[in-house]
Structure formats: C-alpha cells, structure tokens
C-alpha cells in the first residue's frame, strides 16, 4: 500500500528530518510510529499523502509515485489527521467543517448530509453540530478533525497523536474504532507517544530516532526491549516495567497487555500452589 524507499528530507530551514528511511506498509496493517520528539515521525507520515515530497528517494502509494500526483488526489485515498487540530479546522460550525472536504471531493448533497450525520455521531459530537470548532475543548477539536477525515472514507487513515486530550473512555472508544477500521480492511497508521495506548492496541511498532528507523516489529518485542527504547526516548509500558522486575524469578519480560499479565501471574501462582 505504502512504500518508502530510502527517503531523505530536508526542510527549507536546512534541518535534515529524514536520513534514509525505508518502510513498507501493507494493506490492512496497523502500524504505530513512535520515537523521541523531533525524530521525524510527523515528517515521515506527511510523505504518505504527498503533503511533503522526498528531497531524495521516493514514496509510492498503491504503486504510484507521490511526485506524480496532486495532494488532492492522494488525500482521497490517504486521510491525514493533524497532530494539532487547529492546523486543520477553520469552518464556522462543526457540521460545515465535516462537509467541507466532502464538497471538494464532489460528493452528492444527500450523501454529504448522511456522511456528516454519521461522522458527528461516531465521534460523539452531534450536540456540537452548530458550535464553532474554536468553542470546543482541545479533546473535542481533536475528535472533530478525525470526524472530518473519516467522513470521506479514505483507504488509509493516518492519525497523528490521536490520544492527546482524550480521556480514558474516549481512548477506549478510539481503540475500538481502530479495530473496526481494520475489520473493514483499512490501513491505519498512528504516530504516538502514548505507550500505554500502544500496549492496549498491540500494533506493529516502528521506532524512530534522529531521522532514521531504529527498530520495526511487534509491540511485544519492541516495547519490551529497554535498550532499543532508550535510543528513542520511550519508556516501557507499566506492565512491561512490572515484568522486568519479575524476570529474576522466572518470567519473560515480553508482556505488554494488562489482561495477559493477569493470566500469566495467576497461572504461575496456581502452579506453585499445586506443587
């Protein structure tokens, strides 16, 4: 679906943000890109929908080089939800915000109405349909930004820091929602610092540091490797931290999930009692 081939990117200011990144994301995959501030995560995903074009190397979306198509064409396929919703929102009401892209993509009036309704409801924003986006709280604006992208039903959904400002229940909803997107065969890429959220979702994790990919693999492997994580300024999830302390008494530290952790310890205890 997305192929990044040895990409380098330098901002006009001279800062080299990507230094030879290669990555392949298949259709239907769920990938979390993690790493320290300034590692190049956002710069990388902005290449997926053509917002940025490589200084060197190339990015292919569905086999098409992003240099050869407009952002508008790519956006229909690859929806990008900005880290900061204020970079994205500008309409007078939440309703119009969601309808805006749909109109640009030439959706029928009736369908627009339907999609707007659907998106408002999905993200629990129906009560704000008439509100100005700027009267909403940070967390609500974040959800509105997401709603306005999901409304046009892109094949790839990129979420840049989706959990910022979201409370516990909303994060759980977001997780369910990502599962739902995957069930529909969509490709989901999140950029996040939220290790606990990643531990709950258990996606493929791509770890970045200093403009390069330093690790790529299953969450259980990457998030439980303290040396790798240290390179990327990431701290292991709480459950892994507990299992690191349990390693000396015979546990594997490769555990990130809360319920799995409960099961493993309870079984261990029962075995011990039987003896």
């Amino acid at each position: 679906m997305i192929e990044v081939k040895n990409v380098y990117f330098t901002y006009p200011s001279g800062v080299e943000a990507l230094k030879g990144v290669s990555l392949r994301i298949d259709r239907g995959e769920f990938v979390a890109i993690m790493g320290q501030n300034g590692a190049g995560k956002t710069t990388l995903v902005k290449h997926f929908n053509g917002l940025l074009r490589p200084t060197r190397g190339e990015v292919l979306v569905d086999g098409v080089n992003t240099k050869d198509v407009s952002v508008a064409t790519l956006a229909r396929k690859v929806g990008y939800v900005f880290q900061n919703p204020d970079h994205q929102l500008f309409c007078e009401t939440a309703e119009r915000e969601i309808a805006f892209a749909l109109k640009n993509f030439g959706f029928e009036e009736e369908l627009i109405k339907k999609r707007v309704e659907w998106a408002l409801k999905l993200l629990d924003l129906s009560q704000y349909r008439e509100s100005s986006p700027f009267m909403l709280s940070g967390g609500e604006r974040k959800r509105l930004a997401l709603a306005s992208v999901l409304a046009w039903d892109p094949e790839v959904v990129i979420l840049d820091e989706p959990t910022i400002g979201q409370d516990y229940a909303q994060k759980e909803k977001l997780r369910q929602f990502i599962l739902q997107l995957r069930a529909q065969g969509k490709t989901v890429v999140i950029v996040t610092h939220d290790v606990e959220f990643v531990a709950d979702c258990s996606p493929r994790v791509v770890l970045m540091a200093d403009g390069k990919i330093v690790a790529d693999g299953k969450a259980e492997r990457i998030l439980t490797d303290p040396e790798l994580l240290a390179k990327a300024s990431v701290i292991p999830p709480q459950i892994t931290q507990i299992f690191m302390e349990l390693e000396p008494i015979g546990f594997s530290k490769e555990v990130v999930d809360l319920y799995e952790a409960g099961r493993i310890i309870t079984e261990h205890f029962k075995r011990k009692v039987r003896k």
Partner: protein
Amino acid sequence: MVAELKVALIEAKELTFTYAGREAPSIENVNLSIDKGEFIILTGPSGCGKTTLCRCFNGLIPHFYNGELKGEITVAGLKVDEHPTYELACHVGMVFQNPENQLFALSVEKDVAFGLENLGLPREEIRKRVDWAMKITGIYELRERAPYELSGGQQQRVAIASILAMQPQVMVLDEPTSFLDPLGAKQIFDVIYRLNRELGITVILVEHRLDLAASYATRVIVMSNGKIVMDGPPRKILSSEKAKLIGIGIPKATRLYQILKNDGIPLRGNKTPITPQETAELIVEALSDD
C-alpha cells in the same frame, strides 16, 4: 493577641460559571480550598469543567471569557473578579495544553523573557532567570531557534520555561506533557516536582494520563459534569470503585493489582500500589512466600 488565620492560597465558594451563549453552567457550585505547597492532579472526563475551573484561577474567567460568574473565588487573598489578569499572572502561571497558543516571539529566549520584561525586573535578574528556566527544561541549546520551527514537544518545554521564569506561587498546567515523548514527559514531571518540593510552588496539574503523574501528587481532585465529585489522596482515589465508574484512567500497575486480588492471589501490603515498582514488589513477595 490576634490569632493569625491560615488563609488558603486558592479558595472557591459555590463557584458557578456559565459561558455566554450556553444554557448549562460549565462548573457548578464548586467548593475548593488549596494550600501552599500542594501538588494536585485535577482529572475527570473530557468536558467535565477542568479547564473552565483553571481559567478562574488566573482571572481569564471572568475577564476574558464572557459569561455569568456566581459564587466567590480568591487567589493569594485577591478576589479574582476584582483584580486584572496581569496582576493575577504574578501569582498564577498557566501552561496551556497546546503550546502554540502561548508562544509568539522570534526566539525561544525572547519568549521565555517576555513575561519577566513585562514585570519590569532588572536586566541581570531576567538573564539569570531565563537561563535557569531554559536549562531546567532542557531547551538551553535551542535558545536562538524560533519557537514555530520546533517540534511539539520542544515547544511545550518552551511554554513551561516561560512560566517557570516568572516563579509564580501557583502553576496550573493543562496536560503539559501530551506532546512530549515519554522520557521528555518524565523529565518535565521531575522538573515540576522539584519546583514543588524545593521552591514550594503549588502545582495544579490537569491530566488524563495518571500512570506517570500519580506518584508525584499529594492530592487528586476528580470532576464530573461541572462538579467536584472526589477529592483525596491519590492511593485512595485510584483504588476506589467510584473513580473507575466515572471513567478516569487508573494506572495499569493499580489495575493489575486489582485483577490479581480478584483472582485470589494473596497480595500483601496495606496500601494500593500506584507504580509498577510497588506492584512488582507485592507480586514477588506473594510468589516467593511459602
């Protein structure tokens, strides 16, 4: 002899605020007393009124946001509705969720110095405080860069530094680490904790992610639907069934402890663990017991 009355640093009585154009109040009958030196986590579901309450602490409500304010609130003995925000700003520093809302200068250094220049402090003092604040937040190397060129996390540190430099009595931080990588977040919490311990700055931290913050706090206040519904020590709040029902993010270390207890694992200890280390200790103990 006149007995000296101990006055709370922040005192709210029956505080209710309704934004102009809204029908329902965003905070309702809030009673709250905060003493000097406390480290408070203010949490609760989105839209519960946390940010609105914080806006009352530095006078943004009622001076900037229109609406109807009822009840009473004093900060450092000043009635908030009778004193302008620039006066209140010397007592209460506010770090917003989104750093871009507060950064505007052409260099990091200038942004950090801005508040101090407005206070009319001597040049030497400004220099000293700006350097100190930039070093403690790890942005000294970035001092000549433009804030808008920095990453979200770096910007957040600049925002915190510019408030730190003012050395206010109270710092209100609205999810100050949400843009930071985990290590950066931990460093910021460590900095805030030091300011609290060493300088006695009162901290009010608005936060959803209690996994990192809980171990620093002396008190957790939970809001729901515009009201304060829980108020107490972190361990007590985080282990309560009610907090779970309201939907606040209980740290995984605490949740694992609860799961294991339910499974009948004999975990000792008379207090609920809130950090991974505490939970790990209890598990090791239970599994090595005979």
